[in-house]
């Protein structure tokens, strides 16, 4: 049975970063720079997302000479859907948090 633990904040940030351009293949180091996560946190997240079928991976087909091919990541359909759902949930939570302040103003 797969555990349905809610994704961590770090996982959500990676998923949202990937889902911002769902058709683009991204590199691990670029994602580290965009999300501010260290490699030690990024790779376990990428591994788990791939294991759960939320991420598609491939290798660079034409790497520049003298450099090994890099691993590339792209969200799957399920990954994009989950990212949208998480994004919607997050904006609802933010709105709920801001409403009392706006009403009080």
């Amino acid at each position, binding site marked *: 049975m797969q555990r349905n633990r809610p994704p961590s904040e770090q996982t959500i940030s990676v998923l949202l970063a990937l889902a911002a351009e769902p058709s683009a293949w991204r590199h691990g180091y670029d994602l580290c720079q965009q999300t501010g996560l260290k490699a030690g946190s990024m790779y376990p997240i990428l591994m788990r997302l791939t294991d759960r079928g939320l991420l598609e991976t491939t290798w660079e087909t034409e790497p520049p000479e003298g*450099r090994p091919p890099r691993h590339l990541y792209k969200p799957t359909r399920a990954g994009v859907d989950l990212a949208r759902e998480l994004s919607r949930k997050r904006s609802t939570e933010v709105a709920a948090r801001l409403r009392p302040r706006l009403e009080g103003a």
Partner: protein
Amino acid sequence: MSPERWLAAAVRCLPADRAEWGAAMMAELDEVETAERWRFALGCTRVALFPPSKGGHGSMAKGILFTLALVAVAAFALWRPETGGAWLASAISLQTWTLLFSKVFLFDLLVLVGLTWSLVKRANGVQPFARIPVAVQQRGRLAVEVYFGLMNPVLYLTVITSGPGWRNTKPLGRGLDRCIRPRRVSWWQYGAGACTARRFGWNRRGLGRGCASCCGCRWCAWCCSV
């Protein structure tokens, strides 16, 4: 030592089903800015030594670290009996316990030598058990994990806290005494079973393994309390 060589050695510890990620980290390191390279390599080393489990199998490094920590604690207690190891020293001075303890300890050492050998092989880029069928390898790894993670601690704790030597020495404290006395270990045998089942999933396979580890712990406790 360069970050590339460091990471190359570390990623060889990755299990076969995660080997692709080692290559990904190596390739990515080439693109990392010079100032960040060591930090990136060390972060990846942590992942290589403790990768997220896939299909229920944890990393070998965890088992080795756990056992080393256990051996270190036992060694410290023996070395400095006045700091709390008097009960341990008196327990193992009895012949029966000494025999059992020495057998367990010898078996641990043999397993550790085997694990170290396989790690060295991996570090040199050789698959140590390539001729053994994958299914047998997986079961062997599971057996080592259950032995080191669950049965071994039970065995050590029951050996060191039982026997007549226990009564002649200073008690550990009311709470701890209750928890680790051999006849009172049933709650954490069940706990060990539940942890195993939780780790492998609440399905038939996971529950079977949970029952197996529970029975293993029970057997160890029984052996030590006879």
